[in-house]
């Protein structure tokens, strides 16, 4: 009896040892607190989901790491045994590359960056497709013909999103404008509130934004104005006023990347060309203000009532148009794209010739504004 127990124990221990040897430790560096309702929170949700999905995965994270101090934190994480390090802010770029040279055995992945190395990959889940769909809905809902947008920083990422949004608005409502106000901060509820109030005072009756808190939604809801959620599921903050929005699934990228590292597909020698640019087809992003709810049911009747003439579908309701184009953009064939030429900028200059689409590189460096966008636009090309 005792022998059997001992044998079983030994086998179990052995199995445990095997499993232990097979473990992979991945670590995350966040620029903000994980409790916020934006960027870092979404990455941490991705980390947790990856940990759940991959039994051999062990994770660790550090939050609120200032961009200038990233290298010191990376050194510490390497000392603590991290084999894969995800740096989740654009500003970590040069620190990541320096650290990667110092620790050639460690695998790095840098979110939103564009510099790679044999042991540094880059990744991004982008929303521009969803912004176009949000724009269609905003165009259908505005009565004043003015849609407000509170933007964080005038950088290519936001310019791409706002332009896609404006193209959507104009596709439904050819005379509508998108009023843009910048707050020059990723997170600042007070600024977001005042910018929202200013937009409403200027006549905006539908709002969208890029800021890491549900402020815009709350302020708009108080005045009975519909808005679009950003980044995290914010519909619960104003269940009657959030129309739709953009949601992210970083875990899709994390799980794919880590599984390939674990399987030996990705090593510290072959990441030079590994660049994830994941959109709807890969499931990295989702339409809606709440997971599983692409459009708030409260707004479906209004969206169904508004009919438009689509060059592809003929006369169609905005709701059906959103759903059809969502389906097309979710397919790997990508039969539809918001920046399908011909597209001119707001000054009338042709930016995407007929029959063409923007390349990833063009999207990532885009500075021009789509027609219908009003307000300041720093670095606008002449």
């Amino acid at each position, binding site marked *: 009896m005792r022998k059997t127990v001992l044998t079983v124990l030994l086998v179990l221990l052995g199995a445990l040892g095997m499993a232990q040897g097979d473990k992979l430790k991945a670590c995350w560096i966040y620029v903000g607190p994980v*409790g*916020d309702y934006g960027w870092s929170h979404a990455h941490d949700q991705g980390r947790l989901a990856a940990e759940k999905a991959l039994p051999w995965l062990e994770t660790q994270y550090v939050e609120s790491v200032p961009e200038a101090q990233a290298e010191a934190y990376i050194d510490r994480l390497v000392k603590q045994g991290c084999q894969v390090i995800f740096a989740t802010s654009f500003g970590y770029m040069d620190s990541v590359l320096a650290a990667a040279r110092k620790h050639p055995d460690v695998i790095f992945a840098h979110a939103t960056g564009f510099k790679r190395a044999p042991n540094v990959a880059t990744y991004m889940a982008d929303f521009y497709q969803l912004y176009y769909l949000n724009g269609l809905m905003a165009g259908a809902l505005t009565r004043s013909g003015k849609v407000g947008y509170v933007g964080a920083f005038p950088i290519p990422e936001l310019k791409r999103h706002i332009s896609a949004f404006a193209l959507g608005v104009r596709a439904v409502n050819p005379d509508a404008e998108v009023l843009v106000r910048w707050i020059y901060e990723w997170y*600042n*509820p*007070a600024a977001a509130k005042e910018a929202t109030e200013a937009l409403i005072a200027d006549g905006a009756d539908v709002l969208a934004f890029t800021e890491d808190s549900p402020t815009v939604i709350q302020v708009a809801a108080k005045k009975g104005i519909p808005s679009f959620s950003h980044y995290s599921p914010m519909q619960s903050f104003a269940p009657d006023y959030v129309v739709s929005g953009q949601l992210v699934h970083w875990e899709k990228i994390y799980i794919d990347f880590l599984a390939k590292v674990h399987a030996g597909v990705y090593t510290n020698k072959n990441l030079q060309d590994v660049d994830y640019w994941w959109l709807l087809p890969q499931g990295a992003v989702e339409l809606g203000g709440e997971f599983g709810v692409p459009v708030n049911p409260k707004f479906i009747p209004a969206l169904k009532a508004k009919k438009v003439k689509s060059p592809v579908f003929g006369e169609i309701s905005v709701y059906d148009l959103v759903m059809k184009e969502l389906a097309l953009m979710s397919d790997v064939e990508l039969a539809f794209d918001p920046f399908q030429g011909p597209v001119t900028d707001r000054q009338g200059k042709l930016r995407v010739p007929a029959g063409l689409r923007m390349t990833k590189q063009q999207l990532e460096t885009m500075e021009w504004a789509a027609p219908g966008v009003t307000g300041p636009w720093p670095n606008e090309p002449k």
Partner: protein
Amino acid sequence: MEDWLWTALLRALAFGTPILLAGLGEIYAERSGVVNLGVEGMMALGALAAFATAQTSGSPALGLLAALAAAALAALLFAMAAVGLRANQYVAGLALSMLGLGLAGLLGKPFEGAPLERTLPEGAFVAGALLLALALWFFLQHTYWGLVLRSAGENPEAVDAMGVNVFLVRYAAVAFGGAMAGLAGAFLSLAYRPSWADGITSGLGWIAVALAIFASWHPLKAALAALFFGALYHLSYRLQAQVTPELLKAMPYLFVVLVLSLSALGRGPSGAPEALGTPYERGERR
């Protein structure tokens, strides 16, 4: 046009309210001779105390009280160092600022993103702040204890000679200043944008410190200055298409520099308390 001015005025008042509340508190502390640079930290603690209490108890009024108490307590901690132990007021104030922000961020983790059932109306705070400005001006300029407070900041030896305890006066003024900063914090987390998040104060405490100087330590001028700061802030979004927002945002600070330079030239409004920033010690010649 009329409509335009009206919304601008309303938004200016709303945004000016936390600055005015905290600024009034700072004016009182500074009129008693103590510079407290910890406004930002006290405001954050007040905002968290208000939100946490209101969220768990369901009563925003209780939250308001908690904000007053928490921020006043933090101010007393500062006063122990700066008044009691005669530490450098500027350094102690900076420490309080960092401590308050850090502590509120840490303790506030479980409340981030939590909803608030019952909130307080923005308008009540706006009206309350204006009334407080009037009442505090009257108290400061037209009552005996107002005179004592001012004297503690101008000539503490005289107050001492009158038989009034300078330390007690300063402790009370600093604690009151803290409570006002807490009130400003409560406004942010219960009325202005009912929620809690790390960094909710976003620099308003520092503008309040600037406000005290800009208003030359006068409660009524502080109300005007807060309105002015609020208007600039609102206009930085309203006029964004016409004027660079950076310029409008820098305006409050530029004006403070301007006012200070003018007063240094002896032509503009001065009124800095004589003993401001100097710890009081009994029986010591200055």
